[in-house]
């Protein structure tokens, strides 16, 4: 049940990325290129995606997930340095090539070595974060 629902969710995500044109890195970079030929498509994608999600969050009230378990609690709304610096670093990489994690995964289905190289580097970066975090924590606790 959980696997089937997850498969459907992933397929909808992938179909949406394909239909919206967000698998095309030039579209994403066009959205970020406000000083050049600005392409507003991404704003419609995010806007369109937020609508069903707003409904979904509303529907979680007083219910439990279909496949059992519970809904995620609202995380503490603390604004910390990892959030800000992590987002800046992410934005730089996103702008440089035009891929974020979802489309990077989806890009494997289109063939081409570029997406695969980006994906491998991204996975390596993700894998390196827990040890990086421990290193940073140790340094700040000594200071």
């Amino acid at each position: 049940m959980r696997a089937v629902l997850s498969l459907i969710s992933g397929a909808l995500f992938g179909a949406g990325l394909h239909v919206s044109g967000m698998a095309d890195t030039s579209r994403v970079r066009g959205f970020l290129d406000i000083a050049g030929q600005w392409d507003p498509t991404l704003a419609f994608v995010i806007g369109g995606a937020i609508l069903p999600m707003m409904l979904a969050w509303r529907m979680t009230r007083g219910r439990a997930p279909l496949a059992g378990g519970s809904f995620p609690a609202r995380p503490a709304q603390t604004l910390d340095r990892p959030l800000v610096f992590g987002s800046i670093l992410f934005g730089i990489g996103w702008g440089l090539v035009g891929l974020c994690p979802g489309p990077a995964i989806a890009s494997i289905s289109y063939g081409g070595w570029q997406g695969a190289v980006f994906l491998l580097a991204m996975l390596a970066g993700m894998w390196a974060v827990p040890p990086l975090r421990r290193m940073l924590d140790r340094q700040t606790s000594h200071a």
Partner: protein
Amino acid sequence: MEMAWLYGLLGGLLIGTGGAVLLLGTGRIMGASGLIGGLVDGTGSDRGPTLAFLTGLIGAPALFSLGGWAVNTQATSQLWLLILAGLCVGIGTRFANGCTSGHGVCGLSRFSLRGLVATLFYIGAGVVAVSVVRIGVGL
């Protein structure tokens, strides 16, 4: 492509519906970096469903392509740029605990302050990066 905004809106609705199915069905947040990152560093739970999700994410665009609706991804062929950008995205999204789907779509739709701040910072940094690359490197 003409009517790009309409395709964008339709695609966006599909993406959001995918997020709604995952949330209402399994109680998980559809954040690409969180789901993949949890698999990579072993912190994630629910490995089976996560692999099923990734299968759908790769499979659906593959079916579209096989059906004749191809997408040109147009990613750069500069090897160093691909590696540098991939590392930035991997490290950045895990430190920030989310990416476009997690903070952007799932966060903004529940009026999360963290989601809003993250989204403003990654879009802002992306704007700067694109401008620097276009003007400085000429890619």
